[in-house]
């Protein structure tokens, strides 16, 4: 039943000066599963993402990524662009980072940069319009069109990404990440700012990514509806420390999680305050 892990985080610690953002964190995200990272604001979730995708270099710890074909990568040793290019970890950002002045299609072609660079003979062949490059570009456009259709934006392919409504920008960012052929997709609050219908659509889309495309997903999310519905596995962080790790149902009933994340009932707070006054 339990799949082998795709990402193993071991004793990860990330400090910023005196602040310990992530402290001795260990967990595993398994293949073809949706692993959710939850926790209150400032719990270290985005810091963890930045460590996994190489934007931060952790002080201590190991991040082992195992591809389905057996290749393994130590992410903490790779610069960020090689994590995306070679280890095939793709990510989205909490505040959407699209190429706003470029069209949707261009956004998705930039995501296929490395494939196209090789096909264009590192620009030399492409400059003279070689047939191989033109074929590769047509393939890239087809792939972009496929993902635009999957996120329901095919009819806006030639519009500027910055002109899209917010929900569509979030979907485009996921489509762009998918164009890099990831094995692990890291989504930073994909449902933030979406309405109920949009987040239901997002749920369905993420499930098809997992089931049809065999993508493993690591997800930061505050929307408990999304988290509980689609996650196979939840890791809860609080102040950079893991406080729970398990199936959605176990986590939901964990008293530490309820206290730290979902909040303590008012009566208990009053009771605690009353006790402290005595």
């Amino acid at each position, binding site marked *: 039943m339990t799949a082998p892990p795709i990402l193993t985080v071991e004793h990860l610690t990330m400090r910023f000066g005196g602040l310990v953002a992530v402290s001795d964190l260990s967990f595993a995200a398994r293949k073809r599963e949706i692993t959710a990272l939850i926790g209150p604001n400032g719990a270290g979730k*985005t810091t963890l993402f*930045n460590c996994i*995708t190489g*934007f931060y270099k952790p002080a201590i710890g190991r991040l082992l990524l195992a591809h389905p074909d057996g290749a393994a990568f130590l992410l903490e040793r790779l610069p*960020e*662009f*090689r*994590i*995306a*290019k*070679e280890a095939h970890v*793709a*990510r989205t*950002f*909490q*505040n959407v*980072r*699209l*190429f*706003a*002045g*470029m*069209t949707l*299609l*261009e956004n998705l*072609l*930039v*995501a*296929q*940069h*490395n494939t*196209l*660079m090789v096909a*264009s003979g590192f*620009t030399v062949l*492409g*400059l003279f319009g070689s047939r191989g490059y033109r074929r590769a*570009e047509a393939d890239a*456009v087809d792939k972009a*069109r496929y993902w635009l259709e999957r996120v329901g934006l095919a009819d806006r*392919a*030639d*519009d*500027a990404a*910055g*002109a899209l409504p917010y929900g569509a920008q979030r979907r485009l960012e996921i489509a*762009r*990440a998918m164009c*890099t052929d990831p094995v692990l997709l890291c989504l930073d609050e994909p449902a933030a700012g979406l309405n109920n219908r949009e987040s239901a659509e997002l749920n369905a889309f993420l499930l098809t990514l997992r089931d049809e495309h065999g993508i493993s997903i690591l997800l930061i999310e505050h929307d408990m509806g999304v988290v509980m519905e689609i996650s196979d596995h939840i890791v809860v962080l609080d102040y950079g420390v893991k406080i729970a790790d398990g199936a959605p149902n176990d986590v939901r009933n964990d008293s530490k999680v309820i206290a730290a994340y979902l909040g303590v009932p008012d009566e208990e707070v009053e009771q605690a305050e009353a006790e402290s006054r005595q």
Partner: protein
Amino acid sequence: MSERAPVPQQSEPAEMRLDLPAAVKEAAIAALVAFGLFVLMIGIRTDQGPTGALVLTTRFGVLAAIVAAVFVAALLRATLWREAAVLIRHFVPATVKTATSGASGYAAVAFLIFALIVPVIFYSNRYLLDLGILILTYTMLGFGLNIVVGLAGLLDLGYVAFYAVGAYSYALIAQTFGLSFWICLPLAGILAAFAGILLGFPVLRLRGDYLAIVTLGFGEIIRLILLNWQSLTGGPNGISAVPRPSFFGLPFNSSDGGFAATFGLHYSPTHRVVFLYYLILALALLTNWVTLRLRRLPIGRAWEALREDEIACRALGINTTMTKLTAFAMGAMFGGFAGAFFATRQGFISPESFTFGESALVLAIVVLGGMGSQLGVAVAATVMLGGFELFREFDQYRMLVFGAAMVAIVIYRPRGLVSTRSPSVSLRAHKDISAAIVSEARTETPA
């Protein structure tokens, strides 16, 4: 629960109402500012008296006239101008707007045809031919810098350094080894590109203002090296007798083996000028072709993506260091070509030709033209250098005219003359993107 505040009534569009008191107030403020600016500059004047002492003269009449003129102009602007803008927006149908936006393609073709026939029309006007060569040189420099600033979004204030490296490389190689222009030209470009990479390696971790300052410094360093490395560059004396270009081996002189004799023409010094004109035109068109081509290749898209959002580029597996270096090298290479051309045209080069002013001028051309737009750069180069010549008779007031033009551009066309971005690829309809969406370099940590 408190009472809900009444929902404010949908107000009329502000532009439809004429608010006279506000307009008068605005005009009064403008007049006050004008008074403050000009009271010492125009109101009071010191002249040398007959005994050699300074004599104070006042010109309050002129001052009053200027302040009054500013008041009236500001009042008109605040009243009639706004009305006119509304009327124009009302009565100019949308079809006209789309037609004018689609006209840039025709404008480019017309511009090119004009550039091609200039030597035919103005064959006997040496002055205009020289001006044409100058404009084309700066157009080419603008195209080159446009790759770095307009596409990749890297603010380079030291572009003249690559121009200088190209010029000195050409002069030194051609003089020392006696190689022909066509061999020296690519060598000069390669050496300039090499200088670009050399500069790029240490500084490309910087962005925006910081990058601008370092490149500014680099431009000065190159100039100072040229000035002080006497044994190689001749220092402030420069290099004279730089080999002149030949028509594929035929020199432009009155000898029997010269260009004129070979083609059975009467010898004329204009032949060389016309040849130089077409040479720089070809080089500028080559730069333009390569740039347009690169924009449609992955590297060009990566440059533009880099300008839009560097963090996202890195998250998509783009090696941003290499991407920036190629932009720098490519821009520097075209700067080097232009430099080699400059050296062979002038026949004499010295560090004085490569001051910061040149960098600023080329950057102004790129910014004025609209970042990333090739046609805009060509138009801006023509307007700026042509304008310089046109207002030559105004002497010291030339810079005043120039400054006023720049202020007008900043107010009315802050994104440059051509302020739309044309997508590099499209699925169905090719739509231009308004520059309001196109961003320049952003820098934060990822969140």
